């Protein structure tokens, strides 16, 4: 067994994760609350935060806005591929390190695909301002899956051969059945999962349309889960096809209806990407990578996050025409009778 780095747990250890769930009230109770309450009740300084979605799909943008508004220190962020969620949290650290800090990131990819690299990742990474641990998309997904399964690790065929095993807590062992090397990845059990979904009931049963990402695994692995949803529906509607439920209620602690909660990213059946807004926001951070001024970025945060009470007020800053256009674009990709 090769040991590349010392073993330690971030978030909860497997035994702590089990204990957290055993002691939790897992019954059906009305979990509706404001996002302000959900964030203040379930997130603490130092927490490991599991971020749902995939790149700009169903990122928990509204919840990250609220986290910035309230301010948290020494966070660990865990995700496979993310875009706006870590960007919002990290850029807040760039302008208000007294108020928001990220200590560590466990990730496969932080970037914006066709919208470019992440300037906040470059800024923090290239200045050595945060710890991080590189994995792949399957590695992180499998780590959440191990956490969701109540296992301390999961075997995978990667990472093997490259540098990921050299810079992570991967263990490589000879398979006791085949004799060939196989990687063992430590489970990830975040303190809190942030998940945005298309629909939920008040108990926390969630329906996800389009890609599931790794949302169910993150929610099941975490000690607490904050769900934001586009639609809040009656339990009877949500359970009318039980197999549509991606996350069952006992895994959820807070349910908050937040229309456009993943915007300017995309949410299947609801809205397509607002690429202009994504590029505009990244454009405020980019100059800082090369040592430019933070003023424009500060102004943005003051106006869109610190200066408003709720994410709804941020959404109201968009032109109705644009919101409707992004809804219409999405309606073309997954056509359904209303």
């Amino acid at each position: 067994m090769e040991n590349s780095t010392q073993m330690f747990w971030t978030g909860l250890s497997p035994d702590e994760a089990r204990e957290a769930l055993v002691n939790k009230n897992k019954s059906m109770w009305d979990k509706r609350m404001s996002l302000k309450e959900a964030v203040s009740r379930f997130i603490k300084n130092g927490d490991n935060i599991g971020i749902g979605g995939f790149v700009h799909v169903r990122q928990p943008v509204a919840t990250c806005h609220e986290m910035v508004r309230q301010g948290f220190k020494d966070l660990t962020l865990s995700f496979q591929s993310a875009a706006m969620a870590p960007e919002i949290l990290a850029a807040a650290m760039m302008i208000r390190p007294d108020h928001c800090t990220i200590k560590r990131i466990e990730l496969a990819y932080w970037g914006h695909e066709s919208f470019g690299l992440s300037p906040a990742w470059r800024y923090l990474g290239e200045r050595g301002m945060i710890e991080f641990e590189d994995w792949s998309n399957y590695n992180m997904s499998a780590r959440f899956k191990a956490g969701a399964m109540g296992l301390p690790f999961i075997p995978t065929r990667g990472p093997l051969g490259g540098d990921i095993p050299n810079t992570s807590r991967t263990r490589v062992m000879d398979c006791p059945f085949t004799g060939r090397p196989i990687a063992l990845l430590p489970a990830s059990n975040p303190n809190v999962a942030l998940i945005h979904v298309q629909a939920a009931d008040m108990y926390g049963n969630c329906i996800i349309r389009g890609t599931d990402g790794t949302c169910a695994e993150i929610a099941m692995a975490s000690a607490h889960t904050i769900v934001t949803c586009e639609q809040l529906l009656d339990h009877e509607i949500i359970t009318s096809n039980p197999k549509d439920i991606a996350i069952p209620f006992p895994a959820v602690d807070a349910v908050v209806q937040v229309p456009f909660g993943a915007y300017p990213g995309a949410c299947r059946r609801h809205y397509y990407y607002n690429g202009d807004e994504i590029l505009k926001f990244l454009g405020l951070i980019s100059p800082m990578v090369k040592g430019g001024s933070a003023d424009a970025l500060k102004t943005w945060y003051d106006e869109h996050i610190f200066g408003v009470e709720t994410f709804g007020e941020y959404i109201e800053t968009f032109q109705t025409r644009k919101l409707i256009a992004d809804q219409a674009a999405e309606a073309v990709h997954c056509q359904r009778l209303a």
Partner: protein
Amino acid sequence: MTVATDFTAQELIVVAGAKVLEDNKIVFVGTGLPMVATLLAKLTHAPGLIPVFEAGAVGPPLLHGLPISVGDSKTGTGASYMKGLNAAFELTQRGFADFGFIGGAEVDMYGNLNSTMIGEFPDEYHKPKVRLPGSGGTADMAASCERTILIVPHERKKFNEKLSYVTSPGHLDGTPGARQKAGMQGKGPYRLITTKGIFDFDEETKRMRILYTFPGETIKSVQAATGFELLVAPHVAEFPPPTVEEVRLIRETVDPRGIFVKRAA
């Protein structure tokens, strides 16, 4: 089939990428130019090509055009399976993906790719010169697709003897059976497509080998832009320029908004 005279380096790469793809095979498609090449292949010689996207979609017809992300809603519609990342990578690890189609910021002579960092490793890992996005799904596709097709823009600083970081393992150090010994599956890098030509990997040494040069390039000019010694296939051919029809398809149908294929040469 008139040959185009007005085409960009990216358009050429897309056409070459499409032609490498075989009809009726399953290809796990990375973000960016691989998506464009895949759509072009489906619209031309490979209508039965089956794309898989890491966010979960298996075999979508892509009727609504080019996705701007591998998690784009456009990948989901009409797909034959869609269960999230674990499911997509599990089926790849099982052996369902004939090809993986991936890019990187840096490549070495054995087809290993870097998309993590530029700088000295390991000293600068936690404070690199340039922090790149990270593996995403490329390390997984590299580890478990049966063969991989690589796309890297051909610049000397991207073709190096030693990578800053091996994110996505190719033929490793080229020794026989290196991938299997390391515990990986599949045959590894099959083709590399750059802005200067198409390459394969020598059967014996697993070293990068020129197969085709692109219009305007020679073996010598390609070698000059490469930071290690290239092998040369017995009969290097010139890859034909794209046809007018191919260029029109890319500009008008595949990527009309220039999301990945930029208009500037």
